[in-house]
């Protein structure tokens, strides 16, 4: 399959179409509303499910296969927030607080983008490493901590300890890490018992989730003017840079075409679950319009539609494929 065909497959996948329907719903001012309880339920489900699957896969993967990709992921979680911060300060002329806040988002990872990438790999019949969900847990946290540390160094004082505790006890990380431990302890046997809930319906549930995200993203787009042109460009170019870096490091670490592609997508993605919560606590002065509009209004749709096929093309090219 060539890249155009893959792009078509991706754009016409149920998940991307649901995202589009969500945008349309907002544009035509529909009274459609996803109940808060459903949104929360879907989030809990997706995070726990990612954790369970990653943990169960890890339980049967020899350590020798995992350590290199894990190291590559750790490297990404240090490099990407620093890179984002530097670009935002130097080129974007953002102040310390807002630059650090945005960097925390772009260093961390979006669980939904991760799922969309693995779903795309399934549709493209490209196998991926089973332990990939574990890498989400590794990538999620450090980047946020690093970005907060930067802001702290420049500002002094305050509740960094509380922010870090908040991140670890925060529901996203708790479910992701807790799910991983559960999956690891119960193993593939245990996972099979609950597969009818946590494995099979996964891609269908994503459709409901993206319907809601489409509505949220469309509302964010209304703030587009206030965030300025630089941030719009940043929200598209930065993922391409971080994504390429991720694919490359993943390939170096010996990951498969599909695995490197998914790692790249993770690096390219910007968090809008764990990061906003942490930033709101540790850097309340930062303007949410900036970080939410960039990550949810620009980068997320870009990755979902164009980014994913692009990172795949890069991965195939790096692996010497067509």
């Amino acid at each position: 399959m060539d890249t155009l065909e893959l792009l078509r497959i991706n754009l016409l996948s149920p998940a991307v179409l649901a995202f589009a329907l969500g945008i349309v719903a907002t544009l035509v001012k529909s009274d459609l509303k996803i109940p808060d309880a459903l949104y929360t339920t879907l989030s809990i489900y997706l995070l726990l499910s990612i954790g369970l699957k990653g943990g169960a896969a890890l339980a049967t993967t020899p350590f020798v296969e995992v350590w290199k990709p894990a190291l590559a992921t750790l490297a990404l979680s240090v490099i990407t927030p620093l890179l984002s911060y530097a670009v935002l300060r130097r080129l974007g002329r953002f102040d310390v607080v807002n630059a650090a806040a945005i960097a925390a988002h772009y260093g961390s990872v979006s669980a939904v983008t991760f799922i969309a990438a693995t779903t795309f790999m399934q549709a493209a019949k490209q196998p991926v490493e089973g332990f990939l969900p574990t890498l989400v847990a590794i990538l999620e946290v450090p980047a946020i901590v690093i970005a907060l540390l930067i802001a702290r160094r420049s500002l002094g004082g305050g509740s960094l300890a509380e922010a870090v505790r908040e991140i670890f006890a925060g529901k996203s990380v708790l479910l992701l890490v807790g799910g991983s431990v559960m999956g690891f302890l119960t193993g593939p046997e245990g996972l099979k018992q609950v597969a009818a809930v946590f494995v099979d319906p996964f891609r269908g549930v994503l459709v409901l989730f993206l319907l809601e995200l489409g509505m949220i993203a469309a509302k964010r787009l209304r703030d587009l003017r206030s965030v300025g042109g630089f941030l719009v460009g940043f929200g598209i170019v930065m993922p391409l840079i971080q994504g390429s870096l991720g694919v490359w490091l993943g390939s170096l670490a010996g990951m498969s075409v599909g695995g490197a592609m998914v790692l790249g997508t993770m690096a390219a993605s910007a968090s809008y679950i764990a990061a906003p919560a942490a930033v709101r606590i540790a850097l309340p002065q930062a303007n949410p319009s900036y970080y939410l509009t960039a990550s949810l209004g620009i980068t997320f749709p870009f990755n979902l539609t164009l980014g994913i096929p692009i990172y795949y093309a890069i991965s195939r090219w790096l692996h010497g494929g067509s």
Partner: protein
Amino acid sequence: MALVSLKLVTIIAEGFLEEKLVRDIKRLGAKGYTITDARGEGSRGVRASEWEGSNIRLETIVSPAVAERILNHLAEVYFANYAVIAFVENVEVVRGDKYT
């Protein structure tokens, strides 16, 4: 029925502040509180994120002195950086000693 006059302080705030606010008002002397989930708009547009939930509406019945302490505290700590508003009303309650 002997009714006692007290203050009802209502705080509307971003949902993720719930634990903090509860801790603070208890420390300042509130003996109880009631919370309902809410949504809204004000001068500041944005919230932390959907995943953090929307607004909460926290009510607490307190003595006038505690009410003033709570308002002062909110003004100092929250008003600058968070989406928070607060207002006070007079209410009459049965069993006034329960609240002070």
